[in-house]
Every structure is written in C-alpha cells, then in structure tokens.
C-alpha cells in the first residue's frame, strides 16, 4: 500500500472512531446531543438519544463493533512492519547486492539438509562485527554417526557461505536424533 492509500485509510479510521464514539456516548446517555454545540451533529445524533431497547442495544453493539474494528485497523496501519534484515554480499559503484536474513536462513537449512543422514535443519543467523555467525540445529538419522555428521554439516554450511559471501562464518551445529519440533532430549556436539 503506498503512502497516499495509507493516509486515506488512517483518516477514514479516525473518522469512524470519532463517529462511533459519539454514537456510543449519545446512545449510552453520557452526552446530550444538544451539548455538542454543532447543529448538524446534534440533529444527526438526536435519534440515537431517543432509542429504547432493543434498538438501543443493537445501536450500541454496532457502534462498539465499529469502534473496535477501526482501532485495530488504525493500530495495524501505524505499527511499522517488521523489517527483514539484509546482509550485503557485494557493494560497488554499480549497486549493492543483498540477501535477506530469511532467504539466507533457508539457504543454510537447505545446504545442511543435503548432507546424507540429516533429516531436518533449522538455523539462526547473527551478524556481528566479527562476522556472520550461524547456529544450526539438525535432526539426524538414528543410525548415523552424529559427531561425524555434525562436522560434515558445519563444513557444508561454511563452504556455502564462503561461496556466496566470500567470507568465513562461524558455524555451530547441534545434532539431535528426535525431530526438531520436539523438545531436545539428546544432544550431540
């Protein structure tokens, strides 16, 4: 959504919030329409002040629903989206090449999963002044040699990152027999 659309949505939700709040206040008899000192507004709100149940209950429910909905939309519009961090692969006069952290995480997980005996991989990436750090958890075949597999996964991830980034990353691999979505019971370093 571009900025103009976003501004229009924000203005519309503010209008809905104001209107539904006024209707609620008048219907619940918290404010008398005559006290609003805006003739047109008083005229529009006057019928709500005269409502009796059950139409009064319906009006309150609709106004409250619209108020909540508008508040939710307003908060969603005003909350900045979570930005996917970008890691730079290459930068020169012609431009910059970056990869998103999510994209790189997928790359690392796929490289790890290519090692025979690895059932599943899930990684986390950290970029510090010292360079890129990768923490990878892998679920391995119960019949495999886990320590050896751990070394293979580490070498594979390191090799892939060196190929793409041209720099060495610190890679830590934890291997477990159980699937990754279960709690870790046995850990092999």
């Amino acid at each position, binding site marked *: 959504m*571009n900025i103009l659309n976003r501004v229009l949505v924000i203005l519309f939700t503010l209008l809905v919030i104001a209107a539904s709040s006024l209707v609620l206040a008048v219907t619940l008899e918290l404010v008398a329409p005559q006290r609003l000192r805006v003739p047109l507004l008083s005229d529009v709100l006057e019928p709500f002040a005269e409502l009796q149940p059950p139409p009064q209950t319906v009006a309150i429910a609709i106004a409250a629903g619209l108020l909540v909905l508008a508040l939710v939309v307003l908060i969603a519009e005003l909350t900045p*989206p979570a930005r996917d961090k970008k890691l730079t692969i*290459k930068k020169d006069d012609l431009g910059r*090449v*970056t990869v*998103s952290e999510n*994209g790189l995480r*997928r790359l690392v997980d*796929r490289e790890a999963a290519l090692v025979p005996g690895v059932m599943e991989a899930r990684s986390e990436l950290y970029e510090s002044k010292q360079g890129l750090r990768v923490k990878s958890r892998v679920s391995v075949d119960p019949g495999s040699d886990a320590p050896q597999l751990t070394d293979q996964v580490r070498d594979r991830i390191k090799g892939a990152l060196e190929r793409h980034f*041209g720099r060495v990353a610190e890679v830590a691999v934890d291997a477990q027999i159980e699937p990754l979505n279960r709690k870790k019971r046995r850990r092999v370093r």
Partner: protein
Amino acid sequence: MQMDSTDRLELARFLGGAAIAVPGVVGLRGGRSGEVTEYGPGGRVSGVAVAAAAERLQVTVSIAARYSPDLDLARLAGRVRRAVQRVADERVPDTVERVDVVVVDLVT
C-alpha cells in the same frame, strides 16, 4: 532526471521483465508491506522500485531465486543487475545510475 509516475511504472515493468527472464530467478517479491514496489496510475509492479537520486535513477529489484546446490547468489545477482541495466539503457539511456538487487527468498 524528471519522470512522472506513469513513466516510472512503465520502466519498472520492463525492468521487472528483464530480471525475471534471468535463469535462476523464480519471481519478483515486493515485500510484505510493499517496500520494493513501484506504484502508478492504474497499477503497480511488485519487486521493482525506481527512485530518483539527484539527476539519475536508482533501481531496486527484489527477487526470489531458485535453489540448487551449485547456486552462487553473487553471480546470479550480477546477471540480474546486468540484464536490468541493459534494458534500462535501451529505454532511458544514461539514466539509471545504480541497480541494487535483493534476494529475499529461495525456492526449491
């Protein structure tokens, strides 16, 4: 370089087409909130943004790449950059100053 939003949208369409034609590129991605999207009258191009930088233009192309064990992201991005720059030079010579490439997704 003065370009109105209609011209920028049209240019973005051509540049997006050039990027997507590069082998290894699966598609263009504008981002969850359309960070890399060119908007214009009657349309939008997700995955391409054309911004004015002083007298020239700066283009950002956001792509999803196809994963393969021999994938080289830097090389793929270089090919995308060259393809986009070539089309830009054909359409608006000496206008695009730099092309940034963002790899946001990997697809098997």
